[in-house]
């Protein structure tokens, strides 16, 4: 690394040299480590704590073409009171909706302390001009979004045009103003773990506050090894620059066991400092019900059934 970190984005060539100069990822090693950490047994009081923490980290998400105002209001009510029959259940971190529904979500959540996140930048494909992406972001911010989840231009990234991706993130970050920016890498489309590491660094260098695995529209989504690589990037970035970046795996995390595996991964890779909703989020929709069912199982001693929780 001959160029100082602040200057790596001064030209396409230096950025490329820097990203390709990052150490390669040992694929077999990463898979094995993620798998090994997935076997940790978390039981009793530790499990109860982990479930509550996971609930506090959830970004309750609905990103469907069929989203109605009623569905968003219902989801907001659930975000503030995940289990109305049990007031001891903590509220989730945020709800995540499309930009045109942000105003509705802000109104529905007013004063509850649950943040509103919005996807933007021609989600989920990211196929549009920069002007349209900035306008999309501005729409969400103006409606009151606290957090913006943007997608990177995977086409440009895979074609090697890193500077274009970088400049797009910088432009969206500027359009965000006060709002937090989460950068979605869509790791399922990046093909290799080396690319995941490069995209993570690229997003952090460009000013992303969070790096997020996936849109949830592409399989595979938030796998354990990919999350591990992103957590390592975040740890290394903190050491190199002193700036702390959050991580959000999203998509495919459906069970309490999946969520707890993620928490173990966080604790073992970047440490307790990230075991907080400000630094680690879980993008999910069906996960919350499973967490609530497990929580009820621990409280009552009998297996819970899905009939007793709301659907979305």
């Amino acid at each position, binding site marked *: 690394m001959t160029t100082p970190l602040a200057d790596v984005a001064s030209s396409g060539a230096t950025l490329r040299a820097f990203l390709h100069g990052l150490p390669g990822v040992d694929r077999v090693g990463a898979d094995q480590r993620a798998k090994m950490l997935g076997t940790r047994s978390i039981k009793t009081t530790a499990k109860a704590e982990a479930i509550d923490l996971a609930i506090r980290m959830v970004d309750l998400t609905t990103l469907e073409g069929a989203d109605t105002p009623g569905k968003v209001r219902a989801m907001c009510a659930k975000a503030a009171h995940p289990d109305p029959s049990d007031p001891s259940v903590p509220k989730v971190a945020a709800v995540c909706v499309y930009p045109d529904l942000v105003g509705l979500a802000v109104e529905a959540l007013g004063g509850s302390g649950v943040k509103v996140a919005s996807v933007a930048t021609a989600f989920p494909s990211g196929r549009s001009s920069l002007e349209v992406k900035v306008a999309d972001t501005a729409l969400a911010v103006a409606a009151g979004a606290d957090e913006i989840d943007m997608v990177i231009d995977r086409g440009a990234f895979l074609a090697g045009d890193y500077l274009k991706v970088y400049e797009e993130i910088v432009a969206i970050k500027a359009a965000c103003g006060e709002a937090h920016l989460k950068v979605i890498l869509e790791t399922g489309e990046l093909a290799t773990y080396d690319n995941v590491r490069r995209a993570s660094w690229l997003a952090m260098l460009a000013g992303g506050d969070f790096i997020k695995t996936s849109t949830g529209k592409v399989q595979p989504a938030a796998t354990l090894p990919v999350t591990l690589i992103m957590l390592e990037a975040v740890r290394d970035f903190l050491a190199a620059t002193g700036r702390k970046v959050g991580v959000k795996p999203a998509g495919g995390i459906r069970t309490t066991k999946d969520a707890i595996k993620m928490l173990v991964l966080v604790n073992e890779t970047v440490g307790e400092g990230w075991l907080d909703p400000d630094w680690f989020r879980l993008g999910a929709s069906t996960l919350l019900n499973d967490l609530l069912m497990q929580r009820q199982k621990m409280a009552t*001693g*009998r*297996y*819970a*059934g*899905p*009939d*007793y929780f709301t659907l979305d």
Partner: protein
Amino acid sequence: MSDTQAVRLAVRKTYKLYIGGAFPRSESGRSYVVTSSKGDFLANASKASRKDARDAVSAARKAFAGWSGATAYNRGQILYRIAEMLEGRRAQFVAELTEAGTRKAKDAGGIVDAAIDRLVWYAGWSDKIAAVAGAANPVAGPYLNISSPEPTGVVAVIAPDEPLLGLVSVIAPVIVTGNTCVVVASERAPLPSITLAEVLATSDLPGGVVNVLTGSVKEIAPWLAAHMDVNAIDLTGVAEEDLAIACEQAAAENLKRVLRPSAPDWSADPGTKRMTAFLETKTVWHPTGI
């Protein structure tokens, strides 16, 4: 040459569980020794844990939509198919029942035949039970009023100690109407139930409609009775009175339908009681004359 043949080791069957159409070992890794009525070693059977029971309930729930949505005609055909497959394995079941010592060789054949006939009998009921348990009700108004029996959902079944005929007699009436089930096999004689699971697995019966657990009834039954995603429980095979009472109390939490323990004569005509116990009546009012 004859020496090498003499030392050939028999390939013995590993008796596992039957969950969601697959044959997994117990999640707990436990097994227990099954002996014949004379005390001779027969095999090691899997000893299911509460987590196996939970997995089995999930599998049964997943299978419910497809199975209850299948036509009665189709369900009847599949039950008949089970009978066909059982017929093809008649000799194996006769041998298994004889070895276990529960039946003498000359009686065992009759028991297997009765089990096959019982399946055919219930298969015939699939498209007739609605006519018997349902009705077109006369009402005081311009409405067509129809009551039809609907399957209850996931049924937990504690099977009786009668290894084949009793087992078939508790499973068939539950599934013929569209329910799915989790069966806890007889603790003393669990082996025929796993062999029966092999029959079910090759009978076009969708995976998860019947799930078979072997192990301690005392350990598993209370978890099934308390499970909020189980809609009914058949306690037929629960021998201890205390356990039956505890199960019935736990079942009250989500208003499960409960069939209390009993020891009927399995060779007698079963009637429709076991089918109607796991049916719910849906009544529809439809305006007429418009």
